[in-house]
């Protein structure tokens, strides 16, 4: 099992969070910290890249639910990209595609941000 970690980088003025390993009840608070940090620094154009994420539990999804409104209120969005099938299935199962933009690739997410602004 890979340990969960989050790496943060900036691409073309967008905040990218790369997730690694397993996002479960135990590690959800780390994601919460990262999102809270970005929001308090008014960095609201956020892309979460799931390429290296192997597993996501409901608590992980809950973090996105808890902060999407805050991000959108300050004019930004959280866009999701590069999920493997297993991870996407969980998002799909719980109805997330109706509320979040989910892309195959990070570049598409950036383009969506650019075309929306």
């Amino acid at each position, binding site marked *: 099992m890979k340990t969960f970690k989050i790496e943060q980088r900036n691409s073309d003025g967008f905040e990218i969070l790369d997730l690694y390993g397993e996002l479960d009840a135990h590690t959800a608070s780390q994601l919460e910290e990262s999102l809270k940090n970005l929001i308090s620094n008014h960095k609201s154009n956020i892309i979460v890249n799931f390429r290296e994420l192997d597993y996501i*539990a409901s608590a*992980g*999804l809950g973090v996105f*639910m808890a902060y999407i409104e805050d991000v959108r209120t300050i004019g930004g969005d959280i866009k999701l990209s590069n999920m493997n099938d297993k991870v996407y299935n969980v998002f799909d199962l719980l109805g997330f595609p109706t509320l979040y933009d989910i892309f195959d690739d990070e570049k598409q997410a950036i383009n969506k941000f650019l075309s929306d602004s």
Partner: protein
Amino acid sequence: MINVKIDHSKENSHSKFELKTVLETSRMLVESRDSAFIINNLLLILMGRLLVTKAAIFIHDPVKETYCLKKRKGFDKFQEGSHYNFELNSEQVNQSYFELTGNSNLIPSADADLNNCYLFNLRTSNNHHGYLLLGPKANNRKFNPEDLEFAESLCIISTAALVNSQLFTELTTTYRNLDRRIHELNTLFDLSKEFNLLVDRDKISSIFKFALLGQLFIRTFFLIYKTGDSYSLLASSGAVTKPSQKQIDRIFSEADEDIIVVDDDLRNRHDWINKSHITTLFSVTIQNERVALIGVGERVNKIPFSDADYNFLKSLANLAVISIQKTFFLEERIDKERMEEELSIAKAIQEGLLPDPIPEIAGVDLAAKTISSREVGGDYFDIAEAPDGNTIFAIADVTGKGVPAALLMANLQSMLHVLLPVEITLSEATDRINNIIHKNTPSDKFITFFWAKYINDHKILRYVNAGHNPPLLLRFGEDEFIELTDGGLLLGAMETMMPYVQTDIQLNSGDLLVCYTDGIDETMNAGDEEYGTKRLKDCIVSNRDKSSQEILDAIVNSVKEYSGNKFSDDLTLLVLKACD
């Protein structure tokens, strides 16, 4: 001849075309899982092939016992999505298709001209699924038998494909529901593992919140938890504003059902619930006690909660609340253990304040013992050597029991030892101790105190009794006890107005002095009767020839036996016997 031949080959190629169409359609339809596509294709192929301008497909709704119009081309009088009743006679019901006449009243609710239309039964070998209503040909010609046969074949194939697609949809739905349940179970399993490892209440609340938000697809949430008689908000999310204590108390006491769907009435009475967009309230009950209230907002995609959702929420909430309860129990236990540890240290400290072993004093046989009803107590005795080489004996009883009494006892002990080297009389020393105790302690705390100095050279016992149970002196050869009562008020009651009186007593060989605290004479038996001084005196008399230690043990055993081995108060004995 030629004409006939041409006709024949034309007919041949025509039927080949039809066969090909049926085959291709059949392949396409069977592969399709989309009922709208199948229905649309059936209409378009038939209309094109038979030159018809209007057609419609009705699908049977077994619940409502009606037919729902799924798709129409032409037939403007009908509305897609509306339900209609068909009135067929018993002969028509079993027919594969039949022609309608001008006076046909097939669909009573629709005011439509169905003259020259055909109705095709959409059925498989077992079941009836609906009807295809086919308008007349655009060129007003009659349908020939090939037309009808072609339409019938296509209806059979399409119906089979429709049934397939329905089955596929049902299976997909079932599969997804199953997948959701599995995911819910995984969530419960994950969290129960996680909660087991956690002792941090905030962390448990936060994980519970996120799991609920994710699994139920909601944004708004709160958790109120009951500890003792007070309620507190442990976690919240979304539009939930911070409630006042009053708002928390009110909603908790009012929402006393398992599940409450928030209605206008409740919204009007609880502004906080209204402003927080809470739509459903859940109570968590553990061992017949409502211990938590959970509020959630509506699902982001507006899909109402199902029973399965409620069940999931309930299981997860139970899990979280039990884990939260566990953290409180754990804290209580840690507090209790810490208290016990501190008390056992205090006990050791207090024991260290008492003389151990009992020193040997020339000319007297001495024994002393204290038994605390709790870890620490307020009884005190002391035996110490004064600077002039004589010996000080003391016995005292602080009002109350336990830690408060022990603190005061320690205070008295230190004063006594500070004053010991000071060259003042016993009486003056008592005056000072009283003033300090009076100044330093609450007005409801007192000490009864007896102390004496044994002057070795003259075998004189000089004593002051500050409100203590009078020690009992039994002279050698006599049967009457002398009670040593002289002195003054108990310590701490008021400032010293009258000096404490000190009295000298000459001790002779064989004289016996027993000092005790009220734990001895006030010990109760099962019938709520006190042990009393009479029993004490009898016990002393019957053991008077023994050593001090033996007399002490005899008294303790007698009291123990009397009380049934239960001491509800601290008790202390100091026995002194003058010898040669």
